[in-house]
């Protein structure tokens, strides 16, 4: 199937058999491509004694740990063809992932993301309220995960404003004007989970400012770690936001800079869903065998998008649980799952005190 035909398929419309057939063919093809084009990747597959010429299920393809992208510059195209380098957001001092995109891969990411998001907010571009500061976009050559998310989702908007100023303070006036202009219309609200909570929700609570976002659809991502520290559950998050701004449609998403475009969107039932552009396999630590439905394991992801870097099959450092496939009450086909946060640091023995520092 060519790209064009495939991108025209509704993103949650393939059942298990059809999706597996397509993904196996495409991902085995990508494996051969990267094997030819990326020497470092080839060496890994050779070390694993993996035969790329043999047809197989995508379940059997080797996967790289995402951490490698922090230590190595992995690409399957000439550096001259790289149009965009994405980096993960790390706190200062931490190494960040570097993901190299050529024109084709960047375009495919955009296309996939727009197909997924359109299935939630409709095909029309909406006015967009970004619950973040424009300061994260300062650097135009490298994109942090936060910046990339904002830019990626901005495609679905026709007009946008930032709710926070350069100092992360709420721009009440700007928000009010924006909402008055678009009174009675649907709007897209986008942000990162923790920033929404810390700099939007808490500020509304503190100031008594009550913007009306009842026509809004909120998409948010970036993980729950910090909110779990504050004992805020997804249900608390939704309810609290509804209380302060009347928003009703709030969707979390799971995604990573290493596979931008293939976001896993939350449905009305609170489940994260794999689209037809990607999939997720929960694996056991001991042998990387496939975990059962309902069994917690390490999240492995595949994506059909990465052509310019060998990131089509990756092992994350997240834990998750597969909840089912093709039978979510929301009606979307494909796998649905929940995440359980980062893998816990091991309480490792040994003489050196610094194990955790070295590897994390």
């Amino acid at each position, binding site marked *: 199937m060519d790209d064009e035909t495939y991108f025209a398929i509704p993103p949650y419309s393939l059942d298990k058999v059809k999706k597996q057939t397509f993904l196996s063919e495409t991902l085995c093809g990508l494996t051969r491509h990267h094997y030819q084009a990326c020497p470092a990747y080839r060496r890994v597959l050779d*070390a694993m004694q993996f035969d790329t010429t043999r047809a197989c299920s995508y379940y059997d393809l080797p996967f790289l740990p995402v951490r490698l992208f922090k230590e190595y510059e992995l690409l399957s195209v000439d550096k001259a063809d790289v149009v965009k380098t994405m980096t993960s957001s790390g706190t200062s001092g931490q190494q960040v992932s570097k993901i190299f995109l050529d024109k084709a891969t960047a375009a495919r990411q955009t296309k996939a993301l727009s197909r997924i998001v359109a299935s939630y907010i409709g095909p029309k571009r909406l006015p967009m309220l970004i619950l973040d500061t424009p300061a994260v976009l300062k650097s135009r050559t490298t994109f942090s995960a936060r910046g990339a998310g904002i830019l990626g989702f901005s495609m679905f908007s026709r007009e946008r404003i930032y709710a926070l100023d350069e100092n992360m303070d709420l721009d009440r006036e700007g928000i009010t004007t924006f909402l008055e202009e678009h009174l009675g219309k649907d709007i897209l609200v986008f942000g990162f989970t923790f920033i929404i909570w810390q700099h939007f929700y808490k500020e509304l609570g503190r100031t008594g400012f009550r913007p009306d976002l009842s026509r809004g659809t909120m998409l948010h991502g970036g993980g729950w770690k910090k909110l779990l520290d504050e004992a805020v559950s997804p249900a608390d998050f939704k309810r609290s936001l509804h209380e302060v701004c009347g928003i009703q449609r709030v969707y979390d998403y799971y995604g990573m800079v290493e596979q931008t475009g293939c976001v896993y969107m939350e449905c009305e039932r609170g489940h994260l869903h794999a689209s037809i552009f990607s999939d997720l396999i929960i694996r056991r*630590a*001991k042998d990387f065998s496939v975990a059962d439905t309902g069994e917690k394991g390490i999240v492995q992801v595949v994506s059909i998008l990465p052509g310019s870097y060998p990131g089509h099959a990756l092992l994350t450092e997240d834990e998750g649980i597969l909840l089912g496939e093709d039978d979510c009450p929301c009606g979307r086909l494909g796998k649905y799952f929940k995440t359980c946060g980062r893998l816990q640091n*091991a309480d*490792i*023995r040994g003489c050196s*005190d610094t194990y955790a520092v070295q590897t994390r």
Partner: protein
Amino acid sequence: MQFRPDKVECLCPLEAAYDIMPSLRALRPFSAEIGAFLNALSQVLMADKEAKAYPDVITFGFFCRKGNIEKLKNTYETRISHRLGRGVAFHIAPANVPVNFAYSLVCGLLSGNACIVRAPSKPFPQTGIICRAMRQVLERDAFRPLRDYIAIVRYDRNNDTTAYFSGLCDVRIIWGGDDTIDEIRKVPIPPRAFDLTFADRYSICVIQAAVYLLESDPVKTAQDFYNDTYLYDQNACSSPRLVVWIGTDGAICAAKRRFWAALHETVQARYTLAPIVAVDKLTALCRCAMDLPGVKLAIMPDHLIDRIHIANLSSNLEQYRCAGGSFLEYDDQNLDALASIITRKFQTLSYIGFQPEELREWVLSNGLAGIDRLVPVGRTADFGPIWDGYDLITFLSRVCDVG
């Protein structure tokens, strides 16, 4: 700088007078009173019901018994007859090995020093058991004079406290690896004092394939090797990370099959691989594959044991270390290539099928920068007063010379 006694928990005795320690009378190495104290401690530990659940505590108790201390003393013969403890030894124990603090203390006492020992801040049950036994022994009238010589303390990383103890000491013993050493060294010690440092090290195992096939009981050997590695998450400085097989291709192939199959049985029965460690191991494999020539991962039933075959030896192998059961493997006909990559990072060489004297001669005649210990497989974690190439008894005591 200010010392805050309330920031320090003294585990043994419950209250210590640190400031008088420098003025205590120095003891002679292997003094009778310390020998008697250790033997009494051994008896209490061996009879302790709770201790039975901790093999490392029992091993320590066994180490302290009279017979063993006498035996150690005899190895020093007359070399210690004109020596005295240096004064106060300040020990900083590693955070992740529960019983190391106790061995360090014993070496300090046997050399004749008063000892301040910083135990790991993690609340290991072993720390409690050993300190309780020690307090019990020190309560006895016979050992009361020794009470001032011992202070086992626990405190959260705090430079003021470390500075206070460092200011009292004549020798500072730093366990815990490179980063801890860097950190502690920023804190000054008195002019005559020095640091004895236990840095991050790299250890290897060398197996004569034909001898293993002929003489070893695979199950026993697997348990021994397990104790060298998985028992400490393959993360002790003495845990082998590189296994070198010596012999003909045929013998090596057969020996490997038997050795790893037996180890796999043991690991499967006893070891739990943490998910993050599984990811670490996959990362280590990928890094090796990308950086080193001719890397092949051996086929195993699962990832409890990762065997990464390398086609050449190079001196940067220690950069590819990974805990939790990740082994580099290399085949050769003799030890020549191995000799060429030994750096000062290398600590323990454990072996099967070699004569230790023959291996020692190999180290000495090649003038190798590393390898301080040669022990049979199964004995890498055995503690002795000679560690990391230092004779602790000698380093922790001073000579009174007659010119």
